[in-house]
């Protein structure tokens, strides 16, 4: 009865092998490396860059271990730090022809020494969190002035629309700094406008000013509204940062508001500031404006005239210039989503979704501008670039816009990513960056690992003494549990933090419960006079229901932590939940496998080495299995072996 079919043994061996292979990468150290990533969203890092870097390196007489494209970066690993630093300079010189406006970020980094065959199996080491390896910490400042300027810009648009809708004739609406100025020719019209505007735009305080023959109305954001604008700008930027960082798969990032206008970004597992800046620094602002297609604009494009008043010249992604009106139709604020997909003719397309305000504006603007082109602009570090400038084919109602045209699927993907990246309310600037002390991290690692090792040793020693051979099996199962847990964490690319290490320790401490339950049950069966083989079988079967129950309650707490925890708590919860699952497998299936392998073949098994099984002396009024009603004082005979 205590025999596993062959397939079960095979499964166990396979699980053991997988565990070993995926745990293994964690034991190789890190080697110095150079990492090249794009400094601008319009510069793409692709396969063509690696040969260029290789060439630059060979010119400098440097031999990298390898140069490879990894996602959106090119990595080159070196044997020593000397070569690494020389390589950084060589690559920087070769790629960035204009040092004042670099296209690529070249940074030092560390790469795992995991051998190629393991990498081929996608076996990579676990990332270590900020608290274990040190990490990048950024302080970003949201440019509040530009948030307010932008608000004023969009207010001028609102004013225009409102006045036009009510047929109030004005002599011009413009933005001056953070205020909106509306000119009128008659006092009566101004009064009309004041009533309308103060009713519709409650955030603005309107004050009439006489200016020569004209009447001027100046609107300034009320202080509380200005604060609201700033607050929501920071909030929106934080949300966008979250999306950006999430999209790039950094686990456990910390993105928090600090003070009124600052955002902290902490990226554990990202050692170099370049990659982190690549993630955050590319966040840009997005604007939709109309393309000026007048004769003057065409002349300006040819270089035969000045850029017309109220327009600006931008460069399209292909390199062609474009004259775009200054007036902003929509901003990234109104764009809720951008996804790459396919159009009606299965051609690559970008689908945009606008919020209600955005869709209303877009409907009006597109109706009046059918056949004309609109430009979607991305502003990075103060410089704007046209992402795409499609022609409007029909009225765009319903808030869903589809951009199709001569583009590949890859281009559609890129465009949608850029558009999503653009939904920041205001630009941000790095004002502080720091790495958290790696020595502190190293100390935390050794402390965490020591507690796991010593705790494990203590438990294993106790189990082996108390339960003899079964204790050995239990300890092996516990070791297998640790192996599986580390392997799974490595496989899913989890970031290990100190709370995560604590969770591993706790998972092991709790996992032994299952083996204790099983061993106690087997002893109990033996005590009640069962034969050795029957006792083993019954012990495992009876204990299983209890093990399942107890693990489920622990899992409920773990899942609640996972769902509502943030930052360090999440890391703890993930390991905690995984630990429960692996312990079920190792404590029940694996330890049973060992027991079966050892005892299963022995047909006439007389005894099992599970430590001494004490049998109570037969008491006068019956056997011990029946509960006695008398209240004997000496019911516990403790401790004799």
């Amino acid at each position, binding site marked *: 009865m205590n025999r596993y079919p062959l397939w079960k043994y095979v499964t166990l061996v396979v699980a053991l092998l997988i565990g070993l292979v995926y745990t293994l990468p964690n034991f190789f150290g890190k080697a110095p*490396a150079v990492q090249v990533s794009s400094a601008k969203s319009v510069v793409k890092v692709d396969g063509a860059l690696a040969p260029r870097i290789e060439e630059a390196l060979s010119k400098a007489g440097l031999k990298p271990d390898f140069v490879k494209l990894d996602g959106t970066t090119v990595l080159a690993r070196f044997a020593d730090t000397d070569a690494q630093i020389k390589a950084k300079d060589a690559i920087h010189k070769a790629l960035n022809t204009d040092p004042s406006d670099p296209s690529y970020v070249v940074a030092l980094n560390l790469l795992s020494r995991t051998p190629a065959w393991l990498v081929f199996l996608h076996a990579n080491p676990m990332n270590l969190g900020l608290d274990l390896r040190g990490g990048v910490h950024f302080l970003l400042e949201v440019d509040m002035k530009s948030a307010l300027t932008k608000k004023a810009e969009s207010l001028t648009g609102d004013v225009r629309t409102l006045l036009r809708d009510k047929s109030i004739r004005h002599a011009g609406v413009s933005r001056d700094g953070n205020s909106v100025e509306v000119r009128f020719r008659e006092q009566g019209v101004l009064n009309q406008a004041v009533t309308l505007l103060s009713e519709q735009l409650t955030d603005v305080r309107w004050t009439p000013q006489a200016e020569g023959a004209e009447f001027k109305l100046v609107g300034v954001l009320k202080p509380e509204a200005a604060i609201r604008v700033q607050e929501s700008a920071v909030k929106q930027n934080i949300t966008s940062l979250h999306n950006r960082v999430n999209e790039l798969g950094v686990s456990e990032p910390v993105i928090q508001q600090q003070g009124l206008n600052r955002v902290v970004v902490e990226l554990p597992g990202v050692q170099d500031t370049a990659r982190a800046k690549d993630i955050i620094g590319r966040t840009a602002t997005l604007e939709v404006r109309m393309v000026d297609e007048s004769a003057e604009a065409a002349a300006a494009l040819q270089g035969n005239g000045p850029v017309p008043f109220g327009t600006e010249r931008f460069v399209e992604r292909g390199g062609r210039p474009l004259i775009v009106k200054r007036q902003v139709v929509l901003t990234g604020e109104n764009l809720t989503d951008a996804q790459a997909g396919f159009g009606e003719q299965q051609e690559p397309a970008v689908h945009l979704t606008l919020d209600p305000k955005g869709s209303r504006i877009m409907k009006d603007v597109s109706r009046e501008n059918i056949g004309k082109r609109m430009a979607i602009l991305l502003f990075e570090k103060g410089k704007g670039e046209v992402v795409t400038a499609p022609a409007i084919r029909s009225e765009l109602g319903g808030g869903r816009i589809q951009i199709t045209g001569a583009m590949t699927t890859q281009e559609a993907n890129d465009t949608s990513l850029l558009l999503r990246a653009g939904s920041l309310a205001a630009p941000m600037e790095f004002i502080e960056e720091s790495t958290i002390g790696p020595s502190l991290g190293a100390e935390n690692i050794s402390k965490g690992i*020591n507690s796991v090792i*010593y705790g494990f040793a203590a*438990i294993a020693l106790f189990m082996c003494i*108390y339960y003899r051979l079964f204790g050995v099996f239990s300890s092996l199962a516990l070791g297998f549990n640790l192996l599986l847990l580390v392997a799974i964490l490595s496989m899913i690319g989890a970031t290990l933090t100190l709370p995560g290490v604590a969770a591993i320790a706790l998972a092991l401490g709790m996992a032994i*419960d299952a083996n204790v339950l099983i061993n106690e049950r087997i002893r109990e069966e033996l005590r009640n006079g069962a034969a050795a083989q029957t006792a083993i079988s019954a012990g495992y079967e009876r204990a299983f229901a209890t093990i399942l129950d107890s693990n489920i309650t622990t899992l409920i707490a773990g899942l609640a932590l996972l769902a509502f925890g943030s930052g*360090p708590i999440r890391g703890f919860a993930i390991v905690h939940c995984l630990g429960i699952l692996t312990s079920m497998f190792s404590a029940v299936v694996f330890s049973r496998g060992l027991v079966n392998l050892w005892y299963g073949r022995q047909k006439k098994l007389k005894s099992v080495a599970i430590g001494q099984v004490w049998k109570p002396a037969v008491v006068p009024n019956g056997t011990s299995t029946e509960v006695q009603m008398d209240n004997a004082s000496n019911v516990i005979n403790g401790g004799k072996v």
Partner: protein
Amino acid sequence: MEFFRINRDIPFMKHALIFNVISFVTFAAAVFFLVTRGLHFSIEFKGGSQMEIAYTQSADIGKVRGVIESMGFGEVQVQNFGSSRDVMIRLPALADIKQDEIVNRVFTQLCKTEAGTVSREEKISAKGEAISRQVCMNATGSEPVRLSRSEYIGPSVGDELATDGATALLVTVIGIIIYLAFRFEWKFALAGIIANLHDVIIILGFFAFFQWEFSLSVLAAVLAVLGYSVNESVVIFDRIREAFRKYRKLTTHEVIDHAITSTMSRTIITHGCTQMMVLSMLIFGGQTLHYFAVALTIGILFGIYSSVFVAAAIAMWLGVKREDLIKTTVKDIDPNDPNAGAVV
């Protein structure tokens, strides 16, 4: 080797009232301290700045405190952290001063006290990582103080964390009640959860009484312990059900006694093993894991007590009966059915 050699069932339930009184008193004391002293929340919940500073020599805590207090940042905490050379400084969140400036100003001031100046150092570590950090250099070119870590957290984040923590606790409690009610019976579910919430309150009571720092990891420990010690109640309830089936003549009282006695060995050994691991964290885990391990230790110890003495006792007071657990299988034969009996 076998520690527990128990001839007869120990009549635990005879003393149930005493146990419940003890529980109630500890519980009341915990609530009292929670209310009067409150929890000493970490900056994760409150917001504020925290910096860890390493001196080359033993740090003079009094002097450091004096320097910072003279800067007027309100309530400042200065304490040793790990060794006598490491100092942890906590500063409250202040509305009128930018948080990152506080750390800089404090560090600069402390550096000045050690006759050094703050500058920026850019270097590449032996492993090949680029490191850029603030250093405090004195005239001889050595570093008397080093900023090993700084942290500042805005107060708004803290509120969110507190709500999330409370939600997690609530969801865990509800989840466990539902599971226990489904698996056993509502009386057990209620008894189990009361017993274990009593543990949670007692852990919090300890933290309030000693004014230990209540951080996010302590919250994680509390929830983990909640799930873990419910196990204990589950194991005992399981045995109670089994005993109800096996020994039809025994009263509820005796059944519970039997269940507790027969699981005692397992209870002690399991908790002992888990405690070994926690103890190892307490000894080797350093300052960061200290209160995490402390919370687990209290939770594990009270977990044994509450599952054994409180949960079962409450189930008993609630009037658990054999019929509650063993569903008598009603024969699905209708006596009025003319075709009944003709079963092949």
